[in-house]
């Protein structure tokens, strides 16, 4: 499983990059969903997001899921390219698979890579 050391994670399997303000779906989440065939970002630039607010709707061949904001903040960018290439979420969840970027976010309540690795391992059993 791919868990990036510099990112922060939520219990609902989203990641957040404190350096860039980007957030998306973790590798664990994409592997659980299997082949993703649809993604729609449901927030726009300028909107405020907060933990628990849905930022994207994702459908795979067998399941559907909401992606929630990992932190609070104002949306400064949306990955428009994702809608046309939903498989990016499977292939590159931490890179081209970013969903939105926010500014002024506080990530201190999130799990770091070590904690998240443990969290994923617990659920694997």
């Amino acid at each position, binding site marked *: 499983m791919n868990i990036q050391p510099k990112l922060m994670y939520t219990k609902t399997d989203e990641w957040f990059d404190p350096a860039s303000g980007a957030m998306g779906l973790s590798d664990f989440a994409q592997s659980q969903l299997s082949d993703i065939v*649809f993604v*729609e970002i449901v927030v726009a630039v300028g909107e405020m997001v907060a933990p628990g607010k849905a930022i994207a709707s994702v459908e795979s061949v067998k399941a559907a899921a*909401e992606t929630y904001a990992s932190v609070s903040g104002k949306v400064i960018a949306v990955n428009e390219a994702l809608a046309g290439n939903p498989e990016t979420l499977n292939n590159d969840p931490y890179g081209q698979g970013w969903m939105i970027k926010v500014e002024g976010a506080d990530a201190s309540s999130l799990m770091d890579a070590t904690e998240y690795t443990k969290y994923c391992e617990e659920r694997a059993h």
Partner: protein
Amino acid sequence: MTYIPHSPKEREAMLTAIGVKSLEDLFKDIPSKQRFPKLDLPPALTEMEAAAELGELSIGNENVRTDLVSFLGAGAYNHYIPAAVDHILRRGEFSTAYTPYQPEISQGTLQSIFEYQSLICALTGMDVSNASHYDGATAVAEAANMAYAQFRGKRNRLVISPTVHPQYRETLRTYVQGLGLDLAGDDPNANLEAGPEALEGLIDGNTALVIVQYPDFFGHVYDFTNLIDIAHGKGALACVVANPTALALFKSPCEMGADIVVGEGQPLGIPLSFGGPYLGFFTTRKQYIHKMAGRLVGETVDNRGQRAFVLTLTAREQHIKRERAISNICSNQGLLALAAGVYLSLLGQSGLRQVAELCYHKAHYAAEKIGRVKGYSICFDTPFFHEFSVCCPKPVSEINEHLLEHGILGGYDLGQDYPSLKDHMLIAVTEMNTRDEIDALVDALAEVSHD
């Protein structure tokens, strides 16, 4: 064997939890004498007796195959249905038309649905068709639902032409009442001759969808290209409610720029049957496929590389997406979609066009003759397909009673839905009406006028 999953102990626990002593207590609001009333039914009949009695009762019915000549349309049309349609429908392989979740054992059903979808796409010109809705009215309502979801609830206005079928508009009102949508244009007192231009001013930046009918409820044919351009200019989607027979003859709604094309599939090999069951078809452009309700069958290859069919993009449906699904509709009219598929494949492109041409020419022959009968006039100076409105010298109900005496089922009373069209009859003519029958209608109408 009766399968009751709950043990007496479990039932007792449930009753305790809701605070009642016995199952009987749940029904105590119903007066005891109404609970198990004596029904005073006659003794049971044998099959032979029951068949005789039902046969006797059915003599009271008159149908358009053997008893009456029909000029009634208004959304349901009397077309010829080739015998092969019924023959294929009755095949045992198709009699369990329920959702073919397991492709391993459902290739025949899946292929028939895929072919239906392909034929409907060819007819409308659109990219994708679902495997049907209950009828034209619910297909219209689902179009509104889809457009509302497309804008994530941020656009609250629907613009609908008053010349969309009154029952479709009624169904739409029922569907959208909980969403708090503003339905603009839904006014039976509006100027019905105004054409698509009348809707232009109603489309604003808050409009999710513009809905028009083609041909409209009065049989009129308009080119909606300009209206759809205006809708798109405001960022709205456009839905055309089309008669599938007419599509064989006229410019496709896709060419006009429509985002959604829906309609009543009954004219495609489905009998009138007292108003149902019918079939709603629903098509859209590929970019909106994930917002579309209903079943969808796709073509793929199996693990041996052979062509195969499978239900696809199912994660958008409510059995997976639950309360976040755009629609709660994922059932379809499987057997009726099959009928439409068989009908279309039997007639082919030229056959359907021939049906449409016959309808068109016979309707125009009828309109021309009726227009010359004293007391009657053809209202609206607009091109029409196979249906037209006649201004009558007497109430439509009175005229229809007279026609019935001549074995003719008269047209639809437009005054029921449009106050300004009191004493106006909507007459439909299809390939089923012979020249003699049309002449008989004209003569019978003339008789009423002379009374």
